[in-house]
């Protein structure tokens, strides 16, 4: 009864939130941010290969020249990550809308605001390119507005006016940006920005909660959250690479690897646990569903099991999915924080389990963490699954396709 009431409330939220989510995902900036991260993955992969080579050299080979070489290469990549991200984002936006001058202006602004602090590879790493993009857009819009206003009042050769205004306006605007950045540094705002981070238990809970809640209402939570979460998580990963290049110890836990290979091990909501439970089910249809979901779970793809059972809007699974998995996420975060498993410092893209966890940490104890997480998640889902299973009715297929005259 309580679960039904809960589902009615969630259903009301679902109706209100769906059109908003649709609008967010169709937004050009949101879409291009998401795509920018997809392309940026290649840079993270290259950095990871170099970092792994450096670590293996430290552990087994001890070659000094090689150590120097990989450290320099890694430093070069981490120092210029902001530029690379800005370039990818600008290219994607330009490809869609043209207007190259927006992106040239943003690049100059980025050069001015990053300046001598380029080696500062922390949270602001990917926030600064976004800020530069925004300031670039504001400056160009301001220039166009002033030019239009002047042209309304004065009747002089247009090209001359355009060039004169362009020189004066952007000369002073860029100088202003530069001065502002220097003032900004003195105020310590850079440090404040660097303190805004997601690498704490509260944010781990919140992010996993939001992700699983979105899955519960039938929306790909990762797809909605990725542009914002990856902004911080990727900065953290780059900061870890940067620390490694300098011979320091990486310190950030919440990296894309932590999200992909640990928080979402076997799929968002640790749904591999449900694959195990369906495989052990007494109902033939659920067992069949479990068998067809094994492949997806190995690659952390949760859709088959989430829509197959279905978990979506199924009140039996609200608590383990939406409340339980965030708690498991916090537990995992603390395991890393306590130093029981090496930090997930290496990005290995779409590698399947258990190789993803192993390569991301280069630590065999990550396998125990992954197994332990799946085991705990199975125990957590078990009573809810049993209650669901007891009321599960196997349905028969419809006759909608009978007229198609097909043989499958």
């Amino acid at each position, binding site marked *: 009864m309580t679960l039904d009431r809960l589902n009615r409330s969630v259903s009301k939220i679902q109706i209100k939130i*769906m*059109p908003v*989510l*649709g609008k967010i*995902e*169709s937004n050009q900036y949101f*879409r291009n941010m*998401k*795509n920018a991260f*997809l392309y940026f993955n290649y840079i993270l992969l290259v950095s990871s290969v170099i970092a792994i080579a450096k670590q293996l050299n430290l552990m087994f080979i001890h070659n000094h020249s090689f150590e120097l070489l990989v450290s320099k290469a890694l430093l070069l990549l981490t120092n210029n990550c902001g530029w690379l991200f800005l370039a990818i984002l600008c290219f994607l936006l330009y490809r869609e809308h043209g207007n190259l001058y927006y992106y040239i202006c943003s690049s100059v602004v980025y050069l001015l605001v990053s300046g001598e602090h380029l080696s500062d590879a922390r949270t602001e790493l990917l926030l600064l390119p976004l800020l530069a993009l925004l300031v670039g857009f504001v400056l160009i819009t301001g220039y166009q507005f002033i030019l239009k206003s002047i042209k309304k009042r004065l009747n002089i050769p247009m090209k001359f006016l355009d060039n004169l205004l362009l020189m004066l306006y952007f000369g002073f605007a860029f100088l202003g940006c530069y001065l502002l950045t220097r003032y900004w540094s003195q105020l310590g705002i850079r440090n404040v920005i660097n303190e805004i981070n997601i690498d704490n238990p509260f944010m781990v809970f919140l992010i996993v909660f939001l992700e699983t809640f979105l*899955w519960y209402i*039938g*929306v*790909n939570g*990762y*797809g909605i959250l990725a542009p914002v979460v990856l902004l911080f998580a990727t900065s953290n990963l780059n900061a870890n690479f940067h620390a490694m290049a300098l011979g320091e110890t990486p310190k950030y836990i919440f990296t894309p690897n932590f999200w992909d290979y640990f928080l979402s091990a076997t799929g968002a909501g640790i749904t591999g646990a449900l694959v195990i439970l369906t495989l052990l089910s007494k109902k033939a*249809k659920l067992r*069949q*569903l479990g068998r*067809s*979901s094994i*492949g*997806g779970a190995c*690659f952390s*793809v949760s*859709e*088959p*099991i*989430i*829509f*197959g*059972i*279905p978990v*979506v809007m199924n009140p039996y699974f609200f608590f383990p999915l939406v409340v339980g998995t965030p708690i498991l996420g916090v537990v995992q975060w603390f395991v890393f924080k306590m130093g029981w498993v090496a930090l997930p410092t290496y990005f290995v893209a*779409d590698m399947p389990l258990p190789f993803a966890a192993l390569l991301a940490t280069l630590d065999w104890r990550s396998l125990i963490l992954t197994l332990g997480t799946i085991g705990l998640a199975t125990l957590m889902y078990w009573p809810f699954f049993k209650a669901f299973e007891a009321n599960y009715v196997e*349905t028969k*297929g419809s006759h*909608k*396709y009978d007229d*198609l*005259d*097909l*043989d*499958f």
Partner: protein
Amino acid sequence: MENLSICLACNLGASTSILVKKMNEVAATSKKLAAVQLKIDAIPAGNISMETAKSYQVIMLGPQVGHRHQEIEQKVAGLDIPVVVIDAADYGSMNAANILKEAIYQIKTHN
């Protein structure tokens, strides 16, 4: 029906890629589809445009991107092809046969 071209879309094209493989396997066992030139692709929903969709007869969205149905339908409005959200139960159980049937059903009954 000599040609069948189906576009499947999800968030990153990952889960629909699994489905593409299964749908091709189902089609390969069918004698009725033996003479049909079949093309099934999986792409991220965000990449659907008039340009990418023009070579398909139907666009099928994974239920997890079902909330983008209207947006995608508007994007390809000029092509006059059906845009449908795959049944959640069929998608979840990776019932490739039913999803292939639905694609053929949509193509045949469109307009």
